[in-house]
């Protein structure tokens, strides 16, 4: 049974359809990519999974239990955690507080214990834990943002364009971190425009084009597919 199962999900904003009958699944411990250009509905898909936008039709299932219409806080309790697009840290709060907030569903002692494991992985974060998050570079902020999402101890980590706006070196660090996340058995749903990163990080993927799934299969094969070229170059054929 899939960890996350999305079947025929549609979302509309007023009269504008953003997602039309999207179906996809992620197994426990698996890394899955969703590729597509700007405006394809990638972020909307993640927001729908996290209960941030109401779904029109279709079902969302986590571990066999329907999660459509649940509150975000309840979804975090059930093992979903989102690292939103553009990092979205709290810039005026310290790095440590930002990380602790990721575990805001857990008792403060549990949160501290998880923080210790994050610091073990990134000793430089411990050294700079009192620095305001807004003072970090984009790449550092992305590490903190992923760290914050991991503080929720998720079974499925949802990542929205973790490479956007980052230098190649910073993307390398993000890739390294995500590799470590995979080794811990956490499943990943990676939404990306950067197909190279997606191809390295994930085995399987979907191409989202104008709100529908245009293709699916092995990520490496999708990268060279016509469906992806169409999604990016906006052909109408």
């Amino acid at each position: 049974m899939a960890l996350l199962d999305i079947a025929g999900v549609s979302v509309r904003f007023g009269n504008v359809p953003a997602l039309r009958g999207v179906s996809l699944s992620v197994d426990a411990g698996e890394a899955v990519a969703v590729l597509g250009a700007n405006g394809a509905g990638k972020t909307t898909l993640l927001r729908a999974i996290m209960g941030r936008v109401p779904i029109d039709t279709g079902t969302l299932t986590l571990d066999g239990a329907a999660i459509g219409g649940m509150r975000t806080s309840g979804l975090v309790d059930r093992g979903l955690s989102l690292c939103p697009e553009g990092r979205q840290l709290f810039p005026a709060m310290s790095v440590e507080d930002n990380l602790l907030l990721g575990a805001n569903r857990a008792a403060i002692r549990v949160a501290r214990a998880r923080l210790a494991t994050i610091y073990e992985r990134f000793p430089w974060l411990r050294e700079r834990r009192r620095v305001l998050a807004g003072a970090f570079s984009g790449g550092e902020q992305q590490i903190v943002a992923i760290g914050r999402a991991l503080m929720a101890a998720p079974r499925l980590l949802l990542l929205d364009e973790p490479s956007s706006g980052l230098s190649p070196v910073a993307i390398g660090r993000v890739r390294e971190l995500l590799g470590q996340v995979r080794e811990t058995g956490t499943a990943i749903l990676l939404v990306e425009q950067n197909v190279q990163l997606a191809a390295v990080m994930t085995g399987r993927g979907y191409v989202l084009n104008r709100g529908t799934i245009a293709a699916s299969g092995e990520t490496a094969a999708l990268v060279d597919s016509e469906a992806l070229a169409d999604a990016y170059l906006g052909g109408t054929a």
Partner: protein
Amino acid sequence: MKGAWPYVGIAVVTLAMWALLVSVNAFYAGVLASILIWTVATSGLNVIAGLGGYPSLVQGAFYGIGAYASALALIHGQNLWVATLLAVVSAGLAGLLIGLVFARTRGQYFGMGTLFFGVVVALVLTNWTGLTQGPLGLMVPFGFATNDQLDWIVPLSAGASLALVQALGTSRLGLRLVTVRADEDLAEHIGVPTARTKLAGLVISAMIGGFAGMLIAQYNGTISPDLFDQTVGFVMFVAVAVGGAGRVLGPLVGSAFIVGVPDVLNLPSGIGLLVVGVIFVVIVIVVPDGLMGGVDAIRRRLPGFRA
């Protein structure tokens, strides 16, 4: 031991206040006691308005509910423990009611909603004459053993309220409240139950406000509705803003300016409000984060600063 230092600081401040209270003459002791009781009430407000960033203008109503609830309990023959419990619980329930109605509104709408509730409470206190004797007010039976007890209970209460906000600020609820202030949508994204967080913050604010009401009723010996009308709720918000919203010592510093300056100058209440207004405007322009925010900004520039 870094985590203990703020509490040591609060303890030192509390001791200093106590020493000041018992050594100055009766006039200044009265002013200082008013400041300290206001510190309790505005520390309560500092939870929802300071940590949570929600402009609650209803703290004066919680203060009044606490004062009247404790006074009525004492009048009906209960002891001070029961009266205090009743003050805290009834103010907390009022907070719960307001929270359930307004916690889903934001910004100025929340401010207006709470202001409206403050007006309603003032009207009830004025017009439910069978219970409150209306504008005449109530004589409050003295619940403590001696007058001297108030001399240490008032500073201790002020210190305890500051310590409570300090503890809350580093708790899970405090962190959640701060995210609500910083970016409520983002807070929702990472799973913060914002509506419940605001509700909890408001109820805690209300309970502390109710406790402060019991103190002022005991200290004054008489209470009347004008002590707790919507203007009071508004001025309490101003005191928190002047002292530094979300800073632990902000309510003490803010109350010292907002209550202390007009009282020491012995100004009539209308002129006193005018002075409060001028202080507020100057502070907001010169140090937008309040006086304690200004202190933090100066400390950051000092060499060897460690946050």
